């Protein structure tokens, strides 16, 4: 094993750098920039039971070192993904992560079963999309809701399940424990923080959907804190994300207790961001003579 490789929920990753759901579509837009096989993993755009058109524009508003989005899970539906996107994605030597949002536990379970059956390595259960009424945020907002969804998925498939936690809760560690108890194999965090911007000239919200999810460097300290708290509370491996743009950012998440990381908004700005994070990490490990495993959870509290 190279110094970069990690095992995550029993799955070997060649390196801990993945791309976050919704910021990489199904990968096609990025093959012009780098070989997708260099990534540790790819989380595809959030899938729903049937096709969704997404929310009315504007869907993006910039904020101080961040952005609000209210895309609203525009996607072709999970069946179309399996038929048209998955065969293409399989040519890359990287861990493929499905990302699913259902309106009911039953929809989640059916999607998890089908995607597990289709050979997806890891299924990310999104119970935290703030932009859609049935975006799962309702489930992700309570331990009971998480238990319900994860239990249904666990019964439906043997595939590895990763629960994507919302930061829009009072106690994220409690949500993590509920996911662990219900049989999750891993956790990913954080999804976006619910936010709002108002155009002072028109006195209306900038986003067509009024509210949106905040991401980018602005959310990073919140994300690092939450990864740390969750790592203290459960034994599950964590995929950490929220504002990662450089290798130093990624190292913070690893130190806080993440086993792997995802680059999201940074890729929207710079298509090469995931590769820059990866190469920076490689250089860092080379210079300290450590492997990724030596860094995970190595933060020493004051």
């Amino acid at each position, binding site marked *: 094993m190279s110094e970069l490789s990690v095992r995550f929920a029993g799955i070997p990753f060649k390196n801990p750098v993945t791309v976050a759901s919704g910021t990489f579509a199904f990968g096609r837009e990025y093959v012009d920039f780098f070989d997708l096989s260099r990534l540790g993993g790819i989380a595809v755009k959030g899938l729903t039971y049937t096709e969704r*058109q*997404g929310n009315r524009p504007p869907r*993006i508003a910039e904020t101080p070192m961040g952005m609000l989005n209210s895309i609203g899970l*525009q996607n072709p539906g999970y069946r179309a993904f399996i038929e048209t996107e998955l065969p293409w994605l399989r040519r890359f030597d990287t861990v493929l992560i499905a990302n699913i949002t259902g309106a009911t536990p039953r929809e989640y379970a059916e999607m998890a079963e089908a995607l597990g059956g289709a050979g997806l390595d890891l299924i990310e259960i999104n119970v935290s999309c703030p932009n859609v009424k049935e975006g799962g945020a309702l489930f992700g907002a309570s331990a009971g809701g998480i238990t319900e969804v994860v239990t249904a998925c666990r019964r439906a498939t043997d595939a590895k399940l990763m629960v994507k936690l919302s930061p829009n809760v009072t106690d994220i560690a409690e949500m993590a424990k509920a996911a662990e108890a219900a049989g999750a194999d891993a956790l990913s965090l954080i999804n976006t923080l619910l936010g709002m911007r108002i155009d002072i000239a028109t006195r209306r919200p900038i986003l067509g959907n009024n509210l949106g999810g905040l991401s980018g460097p602005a959310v990073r300290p919140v994300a690092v804190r939450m990864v740390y708290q969750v790592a203290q509370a459960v034994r599950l491996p964590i995929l950490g994300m929220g504002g990662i743009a450089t290798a130093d950012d990624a190292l913070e998440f690893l130190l806080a207790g993440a086993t792997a990381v995802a680059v999201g908004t940074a890729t929207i700005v710079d298509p*090469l961001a995931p590769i820059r994070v990866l190469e920076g990490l490689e250089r860092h490990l080379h210079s300290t003579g450590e492997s990724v495993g030596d860094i995970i959870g190595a933060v020493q509290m004051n």
Partner: protein
Amino acid sequence: MPPILEQGTIRRAERLCHNVIDLRIESPRIAREVQPGQFVHIKCADDLLLRRPISVCDVEDGQLRLIVEVAGAGTRWLYGRRAGEVLDLLGPLGDRGFPTPDARGGPVLLLGGGCGVAPLLLAAKCSPVAVDMVMGFTEKCRVIMEQDFKSCCRSLTVCTDDGSYGTAGFVSQAALRLLEQEDYQAVFSCGSMAMLKSVVQAVERADIPCYLSLDERMGCGLGACLGCAVKLRGEGGAEHYGHVCKQGPVFELREVVWDV
């Protein structure tokens, strides 16, 4: 044509009027590929997260020409750039720019408002048929690029809202007069949403194709984040969201669903 990341050196930075700058940027790889109507996505100040989309106005000797009007923090930063400085560019973007007119067809009518005249210059230069240009500005001191268009268009009409220069009135009014006199094969237009809507009203009656360059708040510029949504009418009339950065930025007016 796959998009390219390129560091472009500014060769010339000329202020055309208050808050409008004309930039010539050495960017040979992007310049070689760019088509009329396409844009580049520019990283602005370090503390501004997202790139800003700017249409390519012209290409010459490996240089991109961009016209930028201050609208906020990012464009203000671009307005402050000087020759010798380097810009982080992503482009050329947009699968669909202005189409190439049919060489055997009638002339093309170009309608531009404010900075929206910029992308029409490359379209005019690349046209195999005669082009008539109508450009509109709020007032005399905002008029830009008059000479550029004069040298490549069959006719040029400059309008000002307040009548302080050229023809008084809006672009759409001048367009209506021209549409009555001439059998155009198509209309190309770019400008503010208010201007585009008046153009749409003027051209809808004429029953000729009208291609509009649209504006929407944009993320990646590549079609991945699905941010810059625009409502379109597909075959059979079903409505769906397309994306300005990928399917556009130029759309035929009848495929766009104009929400009021």
